[in-house]
């Protein structure tokens, strides 16, 4: 046992360190930047002036009343074929080179009216080939939904260089979102397969939906996608609705897996979130409050939900020793912490990392851990189903066998009662015969005798058990044993008349099967013996039997039956009955003695 445990721990430690090492290796390769590459061919445009003031981007201006114009200018010297990478966040913009407009986005009427502010947009803008210094003019209009305008830096370079630069910054995010989307779709697709087996297959659906939501958010949020998908409104909806709703499937997942005692709390949170998402969508559609503004509500709601879920898992695992809660504790805690870090970074730390970086790492860890757990969970469930299925089959077989044996033992009991009656009658017959003979009525006596069918007078044994049915069965086999030459056959069973919840035929089957096996096993052995004892105490009936045996014996059908412990249908049905009534059994063979031990609860 211990070695097994140690081996498992070592294996787990090895695989974990393997995983970590491989991850480190890949990270170090991917993150490595050679010295020469430091001088990128992508130039971040600096030297902006606004109202004769020199500034650097990114920069936020606040407070601003809605649609305040902000005009920036800068001098650049583009090489032939250079493009500009421009990113705008909720601000309409016009970009001019030497007074000639080359790019325009978000002006009134170019987007659905209910969007209020133009969604985040990234674009590559071709510059006219001039070969000399040009003046860039950026005309921003501040957002209407917030009093802050954040202006992002512009990059200059050839398209390929720009793409390489952008991918190195946001490639992970894009890749991650695509993986999550794919995972979500796959999980949602395979759900019907699992739900067909078991209701709890729904866990996969909720997990898939969570993955899908998170993927949608990352996909919409990632600035790279804006370069390929020319529909900022679509990405905007994708990002915000994904972000808002991602906690809903997670909570549902938690409820299915944990089955917590305090389900109400999660239930309420879930409904609250669902209403909030619907409300936010409705307000956006009516053009009252944009999603980018309702986001602040979800910045509070979502991390709170995740923390409460982790808290529930903790409470369940401590208070109720809920196994699934213990398994989910670490993943949910990781998720909650990453959400808190993400929110903290957004409002407090302002670390120079890609937005949603922390949460993405959290989600990645969560998905890996939960997928492993889910695999475990399903495997366990399938094993349980298999076991139940097997048990059902065994039980139906057992029932059939039981019915047959019941009939058999009923006949034995009836015969025993009949013989008792016959013995009783016998005294009357003697009296009648004496009466005839005393009166010298020989003919009448002969006639009386002829009319009688003489009862078979088999060898009679004293009772071995208070329970009449079991007694009849035991005596039947004792008789059979003595007739097949097993002189040393002693049976003493302390089995009460009242057998509680165990039907008496079940006990007959145990005693009958054991004795039948013993008689068969003994028949060809040297110095055969059968000794059976029964002890009833504290509601537990223990039946033990020792008998001589030969390794293999021939059954009446002529086939060989193995006498190894636990084998044979007789022993198998003994085991099934014992286990059905809260007991168990053991069969051991040593040298030439076979020991059977059974216990079961009558109360």
């Amino acid at each position: 046992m211990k070695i097994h445990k140690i081996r498992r721990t070592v294996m787990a430690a090895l695989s974990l360190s393997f995983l970590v090492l491989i991850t480190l290796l890949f990270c170090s390769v991917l993150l490595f930047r050679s010295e020469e590459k430091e001088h990128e061919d992508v130039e971040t445009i600096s030297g902006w002036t606004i109202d004769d003031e020199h500034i650097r981007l990114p920069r936020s201006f606040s407070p601003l009343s809605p649609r305040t114009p902000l005009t920036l200018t800068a001098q650049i010297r583009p090489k032939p074929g250079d493009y500009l990478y421009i990113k705008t966040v909720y601000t309409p913009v016009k970009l001019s080179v030497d007074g000639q407009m080359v790019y325009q986005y978000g002006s009134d009427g170019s987007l659905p009216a209910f969007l209020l502010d133009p969604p985040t947009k990234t674009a590559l803008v071709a510059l006219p080939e001039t070969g000399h210094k040009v003046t860039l003019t950026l005309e921003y209009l501040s957002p209407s939904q917030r009093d802050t305008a954040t202006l992002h830096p512009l990059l200059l370079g050839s398209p390929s260089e720009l793409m390489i630069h952008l991918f190195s910054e946001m490639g992970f995010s894009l890749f991650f979102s695509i993986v999550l989307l794919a995972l979500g779709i796959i999980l949602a697709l395979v759900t019907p397969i699992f739900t067909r087996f078991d209701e709890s297959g729904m866990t996969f659906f909720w997990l898939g939906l969570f993955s899908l939501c998170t993927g949608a958010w990352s996909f919409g949020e990632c600035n790279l996608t804006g370069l390929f998908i020319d529909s900022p409104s679509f990405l905007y909806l994708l990002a915000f609705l994904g972000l808002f709703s991602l906690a809903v499937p997670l909570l549902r997942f938690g409820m299915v897996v944990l089955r917590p005692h305090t389900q109400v709390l999660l239930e309420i949170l879930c409904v609250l979130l669902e209403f909030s998402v619907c409300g936010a969508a409705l307000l956006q559609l009516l053009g009252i409050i944009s999603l980018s503004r309702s986001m602040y509500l979800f910045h509070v709601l979502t991390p709170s939900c995740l923390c409460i879920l982790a808290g529930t898992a903790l409470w369940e695992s401590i208070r109720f020793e809920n196994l699934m809660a213990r398994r989910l504790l670490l993943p949910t805690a990781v998720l909650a912490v990453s959400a808190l870090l993400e929110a903290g970074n957004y409002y407090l730390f302002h670390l120079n990392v890609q937005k949603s970086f922390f949460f993405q790492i959290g989600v990645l860890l969560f998905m890996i851990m939960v997928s492993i757990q889910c695999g475990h969970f399903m495997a366990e469930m399938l094993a349980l189903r298999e076991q139940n299925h097997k048990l059902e089959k065994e039980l139906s077989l057992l029932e059939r066998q039981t019915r047959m044996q019941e009939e058999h033992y009923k006949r034995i009991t009836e015969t025993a009662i009949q013989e008792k009656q016959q013995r009783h009658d016998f005294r009357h017959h003697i009296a009648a015969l004496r009466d005839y003979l005393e009166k010298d009525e020989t003919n009448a006596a002969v006639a009386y005798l002829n009319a009688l069918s003489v009862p078979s007078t088999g060898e009679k044994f004293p009772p071995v058990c208070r329970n009449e049915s079991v007694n009849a069965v035991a005596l039947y086999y004792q008789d059979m044993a003595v007739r097949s030459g097993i002189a040393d056959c002693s049976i003493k069973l302390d089995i009460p008349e009242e057998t509680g919840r165990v039907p008496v035929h079940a006990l007959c089957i145990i005693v009958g099967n054991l004795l039948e096996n013993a008689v068969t096993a003994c028949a060809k052995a040297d110095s055969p013996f059968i000794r059976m004892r029964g002890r009833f105490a504290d509601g537990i009936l223990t039946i033990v039997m020792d008998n001589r045996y030969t390794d293999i014996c021939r059954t009446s059908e002529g086939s060989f039956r193995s006498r190894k412990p636990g084998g044979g249908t007789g022993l198998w049905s003994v085991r099934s009955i014992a286990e059905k009534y809260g007991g168990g059994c053991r069969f051991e063979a040593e040298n030439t003695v076979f020991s059977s031990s059974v216990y079961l609860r009558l109360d």
Partner: protein
Amino acid sequence: MEELQIALCEDDKEELKRLTHLIQDRPTPARVTAFDSGESFLGDYRPGYYDMVFMDIYLEGMSGVETVRRLRELESELPVAFVTTSRDHALDGYRLKVAKYIEKPVTQEDIDDAIALASQWRLQADAEVILQGKKLYLPIRRLISVEQKAHYLLMRFDGGGMEQAKGRLDELEPQLAGFPFFRSHKSYLANLSYVTGIDHKLLVFNMKDGQNVYIRRDRLKKAKIAWTDWLFARARKDEGL
């Protein structure tokens, strides 16, 4: 060895005299306490005192069978020998776990067999153990469970008694080898002969006195095997297999 404590329930004065002689005319020192009815025997009964009871089946008033049935409610294991003129009550004997069935007239050989059982019973009765350097006699057969509480061992006995002694389970456990005790938990030792079942959910042994004894999760399987082993061994031993 201390003298054996024998109870004798017989309402025939001659028979009583005869039996007393047969019991006392032996090398094993034995003290006989005589009763002329089942009622007086039960009225005077103290758990753990006697090593053997000889019981006439046909007593005035409460029959011997009924007396033993009531005795079994007080002490389930004490050896009892039925003394009788017929085998009619053989089946009651099985039920009441009667160790011997002696037919009248009683012979010295019958008595020798019965006294041998009593001696064996006495051998199992007390165990001399040393706890923290102190000698202690434990009425082991009546000891249901031992619990470690700080520096003390809490011992629960059949019949409701509790005792405590300074010591550790780790030093007591090896001294009880040979008795059916099972260490189910760091702080618990259970007498398997008082176990009536295992609760897999609560992880406890249910004991005869209605109390529970904790089982460590990783010892559950072993606990079950130990208990069933003991059940089977007892059935074999008690019924003379």
